[in-house]
């Protein structure tokens, strides 16, 4: 567990290696953001029968660069009623967590034949990620929470109405969806038995069912946690259809209404960096990250990168596809989806997976024993689970409808049937 090169004490070379990896990741992330903005604009254009950016550079590749230069040279204004310190702090508060989250993503490495993704660099064995933090996945949750502080404080310190409304929405949205995000994440942690991202990938690199189906967590956790994570992750990113925080039509850009120049560019950067990172996290947690077959020709660790990159592109496309397809949710729809669908669903699924693990004969030590036959035990358990889930969902929907009826009655919004006059 943890980085292998740190196991025998830390010397100057270790520090250099860590610093070098951080620097490379920083540059890679910046370039990937530039390409992501271009990718998003190009793809969303094609999904709307348009061409998209085509002037700056070949195929408009340098459009982001041109935008960045434009933003950099604009005047950095500071609203009169703003809180100057917090106002300046907020963009960095949302940018730095976006960088830090990427540190736990294994972007390459050979995970075949029990290699565990190790490569030897400068005589030291290491993983191709900035740091294999033993609490890796928790770091991701912590950083995505802190990133919300950036948005919240930006809106609060602007001294303006619309940004404040945007930041209030951001807070409520983050609270609602982080619970679902964490619960669906817990399913993955349960299956892999570790918080370390390297270990999570390692578990998924194992030979799966029937020898050819990959041992990815999306399959071993039966898809539901993945769907919940994808939806909650999109909400966490404040991307459409969950971009109520920015909501151009209602809030004039929401939390960043008062921002201009480089401060705005930093928010923009953080947003797209988070998108890339969230895609990478999904790939790591549910799709085996860099784990994939090695077809020769390239060194093993590079195949890891190829697989990681291909999987990442798919998710970035899906995020853009969301944006091109789905209209923005209303605020009450957002809350309904978060609290009444995603959280109960991920909670129930976590309990199912946990129970299955306890009753499974693969576990060696069966704690949940209904009947003596080991392999039949799981089936009995599954049947039992479905009865419980059915009862639970009926109770939940009953509670929701009863609560809604009482609320409507109390507020006098229930339409009293009026006898229609015949004419």
């Amino acid at each position, binding site marked *: 567990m943890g980085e292998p090169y740190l196991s025998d004490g830390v010397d100057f070379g270790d520090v250099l290696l860590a610093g070098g990896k951080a620097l490379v990741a920083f540059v890679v992330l910046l370039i990937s953001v530039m390409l992501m903005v271009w990718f998003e604009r190009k793809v969303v254009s*094609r999904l*709307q029968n348009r*061409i998209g950016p*085509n002037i700056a550079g070949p195929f408009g590749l340098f459009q982001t660069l041109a935008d960045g230069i434009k933003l950099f040279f604009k005047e950095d204004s500071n609203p009169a009623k703003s809180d100057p310190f917090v106002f300046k702090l907020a963009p960095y508060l949302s940018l730095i967590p976006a960088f830090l989250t990427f540190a736990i993503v294994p972007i390459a490495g050979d995970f075949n034949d029990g290699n565990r993704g190790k490569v030897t660099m400068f005589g030291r064995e290491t993983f191709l990620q900035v740091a294999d933090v033993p609490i890796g996945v928790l770091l991701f949750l912590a950083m995505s929470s802190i990133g919300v502080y950036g948005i919240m404080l930006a809106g609060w310190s602007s001294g303006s109405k619309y940004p404040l409304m945007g930041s209030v929405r951001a807070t409520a949205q983050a609270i609602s969806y982080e619970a679902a995000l964490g619960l669906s994440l817990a399913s993955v942690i349960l299956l892999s038995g570790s918080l370390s991202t390297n270990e999570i990938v390692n578990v998924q690199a194992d030979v799966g069912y029937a020898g050819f189906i990959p041992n990815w967590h999306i399959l071993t956790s039966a898809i539901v946690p993945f769907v919940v994570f994808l939806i909650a992750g999109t909400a966490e990113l404040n991307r459409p259809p969950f971009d109520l925080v920015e909501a151009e039509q209602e809030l004039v850009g929401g939390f960043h209404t008062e921002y201009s120049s480089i401060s705005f560019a930093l928010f923009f950067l953080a947003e797209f960096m988070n998108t890339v990172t969230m895609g990478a996290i999904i790939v790591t947690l549910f799709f085996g990250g860099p784990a994939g077959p090695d077809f020769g020709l390239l060194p093993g660790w590079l195949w890891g990168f190829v697989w990681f990159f291909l999987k990442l592109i798919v998710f970035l496309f899906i995020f853009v*596809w969301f944006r091109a397809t*789905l209209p923005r949710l209303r605020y009450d729809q957002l809350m309904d989806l978060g609290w009444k669908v995603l959280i109960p669903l991920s909670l129930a699924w976590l309990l199912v997976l946990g129970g299955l693990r306890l009753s499974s004969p693969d576990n060696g030590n069966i704690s949940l024993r209904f009947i003596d036959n080991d392999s039949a035990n799981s089936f009995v358990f599954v049947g039992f689970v479905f009865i419980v889930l059915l009862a639970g969902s009926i109770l939940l929907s009953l509670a929701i409808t009863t609560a809604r009826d009482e609320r409507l009655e109390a507020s006098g919004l229930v339409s009293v049937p009026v006898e229609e006059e015949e004419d």
Partner: protein
Amino acid sequence: MGYLAGFPVTLKKWFEGVNTKNYLGGKGGKSDIKAPKPERLHGRHVLNKYEDGMEKCIGCELCAGVCPANCIYVRGEDNPVSDPKSPGERFGFVYEINYLRCIHCDLCVEACPTEAITETKLFEFSFTDRKSAIYTKDELLVDDEGKPQELPWEDWREGEDKDTSGWMRATAPNGDKNYQGLAAWSGELGHGVRKPEVGQSGSSTPSSHGSTMGSPSDQDQDGSNNG
């Protein structure tokens, strides 16, 4: 599932191809493509001449009077007897259009009694100061072949100097169906008498006594003037 029904719709758009053109803002080159322009597009103005080379403008200032943006400034003067500029008594001595104000409504074109001012299909021209936004007679007048002057800061493309009087003809009195096939306008330098508009009465074939200047294909770019 209503939520998911939209996804195939947007994905299908990818395979439908694009409706926009790969316009590079006048960079030129083969990949810089502009959308075809309608025949009556309102662009930058020209001052036309008669087929004998005389200026059509008589300096009556009707265009300046009708202009809702007050962008036209005209001064008329008596024609010099030895060297008349226009066939009438007076000619446009000063003619200026301020393109920072012009809204390209073409009311000046409709107001002009001699069809002197019409519009080309050029709209890409830019200036770096207010003074050069004012086009004078030197820039607006057509050249000796009846073509609009192609000024260095303008991005002229194929076909933009054709049919400069499209809107004038469309709004001329013979838009009435009784005048179908009659050309009620004077000839233009380089173009002759433009062919009449067709299709006012619902039939797209012009009547027999119509002018035969030019074939339908070189005046009708995309068939948009048919009824």
